């Protein structure tokens, strides 16, 4: 008798907590294949959403969490212009050997050297060569406006 023919009779066991980590091995749990956003992209997306809500004259629902996040993004988003953010996104997507998480971390932390990048994102160590990574970081540095 197949047990898929009716709705589940009990709640599925939730994934065990505390196993997710992002150190040398990436274990992201339910976020494994979810689209990531660098700090600059998140800033663009949230600000565009707020502008749209303001235009439609809907309630912007400015929660505490939202305000804290917007302040944080203003302080740390490195790429302010939309074209630069899109250019960085294209640069990063070209590297299919890296996971979405790693690409977003590279775009958010904006390291100066490949060594720094590999120290802060340990899962990168074997996935990309130092020269390739340094080239990527140099290209990104050119797009960073003051």
């Amino acid at each position, binding site marked *: 008798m197949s047990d898929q023919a009716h709705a589940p009779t009990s709640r599925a066991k939730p994934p065990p907590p505390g196993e997710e980590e992002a150190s040398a091995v990436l274990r992201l749990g339910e*976020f494994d294949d979810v689209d990531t956003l660098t700090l600059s992209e998140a800033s663009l997306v949230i600000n565009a959403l707020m502008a749209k809500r303001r235009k439609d004259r809907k309630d912007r629902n400015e929660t505490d*969490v939202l305000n804290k996040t917007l302040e944080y993004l203003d302080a740390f988003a490195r790429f302010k212009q939309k074209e630069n953010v899109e250019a960085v996104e294209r640069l990063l997507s070209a590297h299919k050997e890296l996971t979405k998480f790693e690409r977003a971390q590279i775009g958010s932390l904006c390291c100066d050297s490949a060594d720094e990048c590999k120290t802060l994102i340990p899962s990168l160590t074997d996935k990309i060569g130092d020269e390739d990574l340094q080239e990527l970081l140099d290209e990104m540095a050119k797009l960073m406006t003051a």
Partner: protein
Amino acid sequence: MFFLHNLERRVTLHPSYFGRNMHDLVTTKLVKDVEGTCAGDYYIIAIMDTFDVSEGLVLPGSGLAEFTVGYRAVVWRPFKGEVVDAIASSVNPHGFFAQAGPLRLFVSAHLIPDEIKYDANATPPQFTNNADMVIEPSTHLRVKIIGLRTEVGEMWAIGSINGDFLGCLQA
């Protein structure tokens, strides 16, 4: 780390709202209920749009209509071992608190390099190595998340700046 996540939620609507614009009302209720909350492991920052509103099912006994809404949201989830940028918010002899978006991090004095010591006599009290690194409220820092604790509706984290390339940001 920010994610664009697809989530699902059951929203109920009182019969007095039945009529036109039901989908808009369901979306508004969803936004009011969910935006800005901490759903266990992650914070839901903003809801972008709803992509799937099911047919409303009237609940027996209460008359409320229940909709299962699929929506996309900007979500922030910290991971153990992730390096994040943060702003120091308060300093005390045992360490300092820092704010990374909606998350409050504590960096204990044990996880601060030995050269950087607490200086109670400075105004404001700060951690300093008496050379180029000063940690006081509103200093920008790079912190590695060592541990996370979640409780219903809130998250706390422990961080460390004891490592290469961590600590004060030069820029």
